[in-house]
């Protein structure tokens, strides 16, 4: 058993726990949180598996995941706050860019 294997198993268990939270809810925010956590763990697992298989070019993939996770979460929260994806987020000084 290499450390990669052990880590991969730990990540998988953690993903399962987060998935439980995503299914249980109870509020939508819990689910967003859980999905976001799953996303982060996916990034980790991809990196670890990449090393396990001796293919570090998996890291590009991990970056894409981190990016998509971020954009997805922002989009979801924006939808929740404003009910649409159209307008921009505002700033404190009203200086619209």
């Amino acid at each position, binding site marked *: 058993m290499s450390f990669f294997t052990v880590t991969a198993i730990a990540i998988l268990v953690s993903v399962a726990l987060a998935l439980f939270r995503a299914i249980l809810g109870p509020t939508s925010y819990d689910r967003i949180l859980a999905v976001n956590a799953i996303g982060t763990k996916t990034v980790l697992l991809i990196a670890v598996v990449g090393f396990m298989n001796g293919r570090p070019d998996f890291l590009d993939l991990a970056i894409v995941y981190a990016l998509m996770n971020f954009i997805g979460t922002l989009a979801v929260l924006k939808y929740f706050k404003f009910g649409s994806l159209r307008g921009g987020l505002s700033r*404190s*000084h009203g200086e619209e*860019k």
Partner: protein
Amino acid sequence: MRTISLILVLFAVWLLFSGIYTPMIIGFGIASCIIVALIARRMDVIDAEGLPFQLGPKIMLYWVWLLVEIVKANIDVAKCVLFPKKHLRPSLFHSKVTQKSDLGKVIYANSVTLTPGTVTVDLHNDMILVHALTEGSAEGVKSGEMDQRVTQVMGEA
């Protein structure tokens, strides 16, 4: 001026990422960096916030300090997860922010969030609303040490 420095930063990132140094790929890299910089210029994202050079090396020291704090706080949260009944004392409170620039406020707010046990719930004008997991973590924010450090990094002390 900042556009040019953005191009340089982007190109450095490109070189570090690519790992393939044939003239063709480097040429594409330069072209890509220039296109991205032009798009970023039209997007109006290049300014003191989009490309914070002024922080310089001070921010590195701050990151090291922050990392230590994160480790310490993580152990607290771990205790909390394992023995919630004993440790969990959530609270919600306002705290003052002394940074003047938006960037400083954002760095501070994100530092608070990064440190486990405290989450910035709201950042509004010069107040942040913090949700803390334990009394200890709440004290960490209330004491204002992190706030002082960020202000120093920003050069606004």
